[in-house]
């Protein structure tokens, strides 16, 4: 376990709503190896972004509570503010969906890429700026030297996302978190950015934790997948297994619902109902009210994640035993 780049054990994040604590992420455990891409996939409200925000400690301290253990590079994180300040942008970095709001509009992009080097490595400004140009070249920004002196509004969406990636990679982090990094981009630009992320992950040997709602993006670059529903991982395994032999009825339904550009759909399949609100979670299996296979037991008891075949687990009473 200690050779994992990132190891999360029993992570539970709760929010205080109307006088009660409600867990948005429940008992989440996973490992991420170096040079591996793990995709966390789920719909809105599944808790995928909260998971990453909890690991990075980016949630407001009032009204939220984080429990569990996070290990980075074999060291347990205490979650102490100074420690996190040292680690963020250095050993762990993050890129977001909307690069325009994540970049500072009044600073030159070169300076923004150089900043983590000055902050974490104590590099003098001139040296850091030269390094920033090299990083911008690496992420495929043409005429990087002159563009480093420009401002975010002078860049297109795809180019801004490249700047974000350059900034995140400046200190060669062990783990890169990418929260919907291509959702705001056009498909031809999305393909460029996904290709770039994959190349860089491999080159630098980092762990890439990709948060996405798109099964198409997952199929294109993930090695392993964790499917989240209503705050918990309901299925996890190697990418080919998840797509070819999904175990959990939610994964199966999700895969059947995806409109595909490569084949005609005889009829449109949809999962009935919607994800329950945080303060209105059903007891038992949280997917049971929408599940075609649900039994009496599913409505009363919550199944735990059980290994079905090598490295492929699911939390389902019907399909995976789910003895807790």
């Amino acid at each position, binding site marked *: 376990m200690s050779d994992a780049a990132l190891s999360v054990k029993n992570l539970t994040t709760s929010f205080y709503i109307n006088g009660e604590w409600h867990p948005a992420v429940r008992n989440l455990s996973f490992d991420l190896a170096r040079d591996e891409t793990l995709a966390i996939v789920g719909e*809105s409200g599944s808790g995928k972004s909260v998971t990453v925000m909890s690991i990075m400690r980016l949630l407001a301290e009032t009204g939220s509570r984080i429990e569990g253990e996070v290990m980075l590079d074999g060291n347990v994180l205490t979650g102490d503010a100074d420690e996190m300040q040292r680690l963020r942008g250095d050993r762990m970095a993050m890129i977001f969906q909307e690069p325009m709001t994540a970049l500072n509009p009044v600073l030159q992009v070169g300076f923004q890429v150089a900043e983590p080097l000055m902050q974490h490595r104590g590099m003098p400004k001139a040296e850091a700026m030269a390094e920033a140009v090299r990083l911008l070249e690496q992420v495929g920004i043409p005429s990087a030297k002159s563009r480093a002196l420009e401002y975010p509004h002078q860049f297109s969406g795809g180019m801004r996302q490249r700047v974000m990636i350059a900034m995140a990679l400046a200190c060669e982090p062990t783990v890169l978190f990418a929260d919907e990094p291509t959702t705001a981009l056009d498909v031809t630009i999305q*393909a460029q950015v996904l290709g770039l992320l994959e190349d860089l992950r491999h080159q630098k040997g980092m762990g890439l934790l990709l948060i996405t709602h798109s099964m198409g993006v997952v199929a294109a670059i993930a090695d392993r997948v964790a499917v989240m529903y209503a705050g918990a991982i309901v299925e996890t395994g190697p990418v080919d297994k998840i797509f070819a032999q999904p175990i959990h009825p939610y994964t199966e339904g999700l895969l059947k619902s995806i409109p595909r550009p490569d084949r005609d759909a005889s009829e449109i399949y949809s999962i009935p109902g919607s994800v329950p609100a945080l303060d209105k979670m059903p007891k038992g299996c949280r997917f049971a009210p929408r599940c075609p296979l649900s039994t009496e037991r599913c409505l009363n008891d919550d199944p735990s994640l059980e290994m079905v075949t090598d490295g492929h687990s699911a939390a389902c009473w019907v399909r995976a035993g789910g003895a807790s």
Partner: protein
Amino acid sequence: MSILTVTNLVKHFHTRVGAFGGKPVTIRAVDGVSFHVDAGEAFGVVGESGCGKSTVGRAVLHLIEPDEGMIELDGTDLADLRPSEMRALRPRMQMIFQDPYSSLNPKQTIGAALSEPIRVHGKASGDAVMQKVKTLLEEVGLPAAAADRYPHEFSGGQRQRIAIARALTLDPDLIVADEAVSALDVSIQAQVLKLMKELMERRGVAFLFISHDLGVVRTFCKRLAVMYLGRVVESGPVGTVFDKPLHPYTHSLRAASPIPDPSARKALARLSGEIPSAASPPSGCHFHTRCPYATELCRTQTPKTVEPVSGRTVACHLHDPDQTDAMLATKQNAIQELFFYD
């Protein structure tokens, strides 16, 4: 029988860019677009941001005045109409937007939002109005009691159902749906698509379905037009266009669209470069700056739209019989990716 015919539609926007008033710039949003939508059919318009697909949708509804070209709804040229005649025709075409939260008035109950068009256009009066509203809500899968509630009480998927119900209040022949399911989660998206397909079949309403998502278009539409920088580069039946693309741009778009199947994983297609600005589109074929097969001819001359087989059109010199000699060498390379009918 076509319900909508668009011929050579042009819409340019004039604006200024830069400090102190700036210099005048013309954005050629739509630059000569033609297509038709059959009655009761779903016709897709796909393309990336800035290709002009939304402008086409708005011009069709005369929400913006087109500069040139003809838009005919069921044989009536919209440009000829007096304002009063235009108002009388409006109920026959309606629109659904991407974000149902900003298109619904937060201070208005759902019942009020749905009954307003019914009253204004005199489709019903008195108690019959609320009765019609309740029937419509049930038709889109919502409880009749939703009429007394406000938009914020509904989820995104439910709000989009409300927007659909509102578009149906006047029993239109054509609905322009601009990215109508793009903001929804996959499982909700499938529910809404299913609903729209049922409505299309039951009511015989036609859809001009604008989307960037090739999967959604393939699921919902029968035919489509692919746009790039203000022009239609290819059109035809959805399945054949995606499986046997004629235009290099369609091929790139299709190759870049993620397929939910890891066994089909290949090196991600990387169409080089970015979409040029519609303020200064490249000369000749707009796509030549990113096209792997571009020749000197493509850089200088705009390709004309040809119909190599009935029902399919393409605007590319590679498919133009008059340019066979000029494009011969390039065609040999293109044959692995593109489909040729001759």
